[in-house]
């Protein structure tokens, strides 16, 4: 049996190198087809009428005018009169028409009346939540009361970050069409190609086996595209009503921001107890959040550092807003911001360099303490921390103040269940088929690299097919589990196939199969590399029937594992007259085990840092308390950073011995956890006070400067009357 392990470092021809993503040409030329781009023959365009009210009961629905309109092929009431609507933007009625303008006109012609009910859409003020606040979790460890009594320094603070959305550039949606009344073809924008059939088959009353699911490319998911949504089921229902014609429903931008996923907020009052020498001994936190009308989970507090004596209490607030979905590293950025801010504030009170303070307590970080220590040394070097750090708020001339901040984070990232078929044809061509998806993380490239590495072939010799549920199932792309899963299943499948090929080839070279290796397009004898066959010649020995193997994860051998640590440092400038924050530089030092493609791995980290700049400085879902509506369901006031807003980014991947040996570990999520905390800490260092809540907008910064002791610091008339 094959030995399931990664090639030794010196024998790797592709793994660990910077390889350009294989679907790059399709993407840069506009030829890559996303679900949004699919146009099927006779396709109808679906549009959805949504509730303008955050909380209401549907009284009546009149679709008669819409139904009579020329070009309208189907009208479907999604929620009947009498139904209680719990957030603005919820689906009421959908139509399918021959083109978009007609569908829009039809939506406008539908009359719905509502009975409005009281709503709650904001949650920053816990005391205003009333019955919507539900105690969620309470935990005590050690003896917090006693520890606070022994503490020489006690620091209290308020920290928070608002709800943000996923804002996928390709909105959610799908195209459904029927072949007969039992077979459905679905093109869908999804993070889980292998999981769709079951989810959509059930509500439609057809077996999952009758559902064919396809997706070539996806324009962003970030955790919001695991599930089949109501609008997807609706598209299939409209299609059936229209005689099976394809019906496409892709969300409008405002709906995408209102109903297609949020990251829960987090607000917390924190108390930290420490010794004068910097030892952290006690933690107390009272936190709350909202994840929409359902729950939003609770942030891990304190994050990473296992403070020996702690008391934590969390409250979930149900609001009349769109529901939470997994958002890149669920709950970690929130836990991280609250924890790292509180600890940085403690270091500042102690007048300690936070780097020294964190290192002093690094054993509390548990399993990865040593990783963090190594990473901090590298990060400090790249940031020139010791040269550039100053005590909080140290005065420099002029209105622009500069500061440094840091943070650390952890994540799992163990490989998910994954299966693939590997086929070596007698003519030497190679196929790999897997029911996975490439979110833009480089999954295609990584699978092909692993297969090509095993076979000693160039990348382009591998024909890879993904994005179709007729291929062997592979897990959802979430939790940073994809790379570990697909690389391992591919490695096992290709090693098994290669072993079968060796068995066919060995007799002709008068050696045992185990004496062979596949290197540089040849099957050759390990002890005498001149003896061998070209790949093509070797495959001719296969005979008439191709070699087919099934690669699996989990499986034998250690190809992947779980658990990483990373650290980040930020350098910012703050104009204290305008409150405008600019990121000068962010350093990320990240561990992720064995890296398959260094180029796309680095891109993941760069991307995470940029997403981090977005939520640190700009992003927030803004709800209007009175109307219950989202005020910024667009990309004009739901602000993302642009190319000129991100400063210099430096990424250092921990590779080599002790890191590679752990096998492949996921990377997509961990580096997005720390930027908010590192940037917030840098701003506090620059201006001398904590700006309690993200995003660090001018109103919040000026309010914090003017009223350093006020809780929240969101723009409740922030900075009014401050002098120049």
């Amino acid at each position, binding site marked *: 049996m094959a030995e399931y392990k990664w090639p030794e470092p010196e024998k790797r021809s592709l793994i660990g190198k910077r390889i350009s993503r294989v679907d790059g040409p399709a993407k840069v030329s506009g030829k890559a087809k996303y679900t949004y781009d699919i146009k099927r023959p006779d396709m109808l365009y679906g549009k959805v009428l949504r509730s303008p009210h955050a909380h209401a009961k549907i009284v009546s629905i009149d679709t008669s005018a819409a139904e009579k309109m020329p070009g309208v092929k189907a009208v479907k009431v999604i929620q009947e009169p009498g139904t209680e609507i719990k957030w603005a933007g919820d689906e009421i009625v959908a139509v399918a028409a021959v083109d978009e303008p007609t569908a*829009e006109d039809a939506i406008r012609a539908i009359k719905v009346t509502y009975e409005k009910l009281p709503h709650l859409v904001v949650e920053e003020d816990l005391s205003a939540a009333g019955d919507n606040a539900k105690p969620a979790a309470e935990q005590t460890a050690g003896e917090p009361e006693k520890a606070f009594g022994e503490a020489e320094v006690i620091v209290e603070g308020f920290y928070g970050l608002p709800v943000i959305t996923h804002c996928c550039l390709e909105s959610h949606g799908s195209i459904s069409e029927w072949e007969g009344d039992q077979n459905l073809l679905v093109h869908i924008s999804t993070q889980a190609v292998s999981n769709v059939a079951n989810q959509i088959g059930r509500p439609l009353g057809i077996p999952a086996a009758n559902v064919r699911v396809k997706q070539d490319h996806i324009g962003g998911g970030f955790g919001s595209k695991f599930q089949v949504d109501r609008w997807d089921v609706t598209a299939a229902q409209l299609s059936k009503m229209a005689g099976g014609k394809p019906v496409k429903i892709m969300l409008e931008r405002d709906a995408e921001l209102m109903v297609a996923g949020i990251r829960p907020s987090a607000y917390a009052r924190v108390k930290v107890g420490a010794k004068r020498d910097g030892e952290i001994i006690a933690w107390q936190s009272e936190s709350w959040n909202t994840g929409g009308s359902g729950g939003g989970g609770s942030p891990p507090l304190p994050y990473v550092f296992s403070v020996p004596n702690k008391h934590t209490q969390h409250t979930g607030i149900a609001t009349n807003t769109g529901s939470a979905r997994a958002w890149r590293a669920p709950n970690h950025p929130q836990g991280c911001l609250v924890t790292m801010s509180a600890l940085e504030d403690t270091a500042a009170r102690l007048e300690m360099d936070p780097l020294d303070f964190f290192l002093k307590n690094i054993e509390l970080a548990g399993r990865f303490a040593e990783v963090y220590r190594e990473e901090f040394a590298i990060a400090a070097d790249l940031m020139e921390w010791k040269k550039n750090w100053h005590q909080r708020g140290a005065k420099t001339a002029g209105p622009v103040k500069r500061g440094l901040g840091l943070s650390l984070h952890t994540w799992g990232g163990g490989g998910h269940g994954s299966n693939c078929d590997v086929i070596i044809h007698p003519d030497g061509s190679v196929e790999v088929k897997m029911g996975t998806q490439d979110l833009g993380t480089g999954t295609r490239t990584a699978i092909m690299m692993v297969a090509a590495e095993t076979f000693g072939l160039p990348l382009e010799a591998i024909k890879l097919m993904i994005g179709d549920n007729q291929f062997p199932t592979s897990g959802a792309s979430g939790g940073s589990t994809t790379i570990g899963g697909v690389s391992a299943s591919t490695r096992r499948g290709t090693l098994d196939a290669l072993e079968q090929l060796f068995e066919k080839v060995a007799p002709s070279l008068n050696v045992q199969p185990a004496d062979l290796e596949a290197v540089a397009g040849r099957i050759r004898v390990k002890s005498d590399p001149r003896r061998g066959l070209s790949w093509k010649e070797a495959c001719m020995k296969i005979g008439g029937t191709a070699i087919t193997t099934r690669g699996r994860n989990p499986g034998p051998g250690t190809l992947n594992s779980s658990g990483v640590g990373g650290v980040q440092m930020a350098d910012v400038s703050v104009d204290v007259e305008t409150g405008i924050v600019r990121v000068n530089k962010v350093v990320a030092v990240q561990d992720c085990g064995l890296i398959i493609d260094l180029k796309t791995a680095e891109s993941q980290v760069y991307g995470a840092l940029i997403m981090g700049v977005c939520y640190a*400085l700009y992003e927030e879902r803004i709800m*209007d308390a009175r*109307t219950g509506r989202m005020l910024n369901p667009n990309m004009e006031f739901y602000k993302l950073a642009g190319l000129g807003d991100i400063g210099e980014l430096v990424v250092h991947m921990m590779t080599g011995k002790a890191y590679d040996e752990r096998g492949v570990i996921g990377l997509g999520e961990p580096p997005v956890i720390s930027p908010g905390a590192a940037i917030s800490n840098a701003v506090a260092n620059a201006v001398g006070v904590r700006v309690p809540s993200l995003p660090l907008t001018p*109103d919040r910064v*000026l309010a914090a400067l003017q009223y350093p002791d006020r809780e929240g610091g969101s*723009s409740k*008339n922030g900075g*009014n009357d*401050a002098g120049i």
Partner: protein
Amino acid sequence: MRAFEYASPTTKEQAVSLLGNSWDEAEVLAGGTDLLSLMKDGCVAPKRLVNIKEIRELRGISAGGGGLRIGALATIQELLDNRAVSRAYPAITQAAEGITSPQIRSLGTIGGELCQRPRCWYYRAGYGLLATDEQGEPLVPSGDNRYHAILGNAGPAYFVHASSLAPALIALGAKVRLFGPDGVREMWLDQFFTTPLTADDRETALKPNEIVTEIIVPTALGVKSATYEVRQREALDWPLATASVALSMSGDRVRVARIVMGHVAPRPWRAAEAEQVLAEKAVTEEVAQKAGELALNGANSLSRNGYKIQLARVAVKRAILMAARGGRG
């Protein structure tokens, strides 16, 4: 977007004949970057669109003895690329630079930039220009007004005028020419802007059957000018407050100053008191700061936009100092 009919006349006479007597009949299409968004959001629903981009006489920028003539169809990019403008009128160039999207600059016209509608999120969400609820109660004063007016905000209008160029042009003494059924009208650009009293009013003196044809800016001999924007992002972003300053100098002393703030009121806001404090003085940090304070003397914050008062003060101060340095930041 609701259906409409479309015409593309080649003369201004044809254009105004195609327009209607009320706003719901027809809209003028120039750059389209704002109008099409307004139509998609259902804020306006004209029955006809009159595309004026084929009217050649509305194009072009020319600088001569009489000053600067900017055709209504000149794009923001053309304005930025014009050396005569950047040399003599840095306030205009700096204001245009704040529109950081090359795509908007290439499509957007000067006429459209001046006539664009408020970005107030209540207005864009369908609550009307004055942003009222079903009972007619204003939503802004007690709502989320972080981007709303701090001056001229006693109601019923609370939005800020979105133009970035208007403050600079007004500071430089620009006039605007309009063309309608009765021929040409010319007025100070300052007087072109109005504060609506009803939801059916607009923010300018333009009538439904008129078009803007050109902007005339007088010569800027001996005038130092600058625009300072407080803007959060380098990516396309609305300023939180801006100030444009034009200083007619006599030696190193200010003879006459014009200071106009943007994004602080339902119209570009002239700061007369601040202008006076600069007269007959050399520009110093102290004088500029004093002017900034005076410029915001009448400011009133709504529930959560007080910070903008500070931002506007800083914008005025910094624009004055920039202008005194010859338009350099």
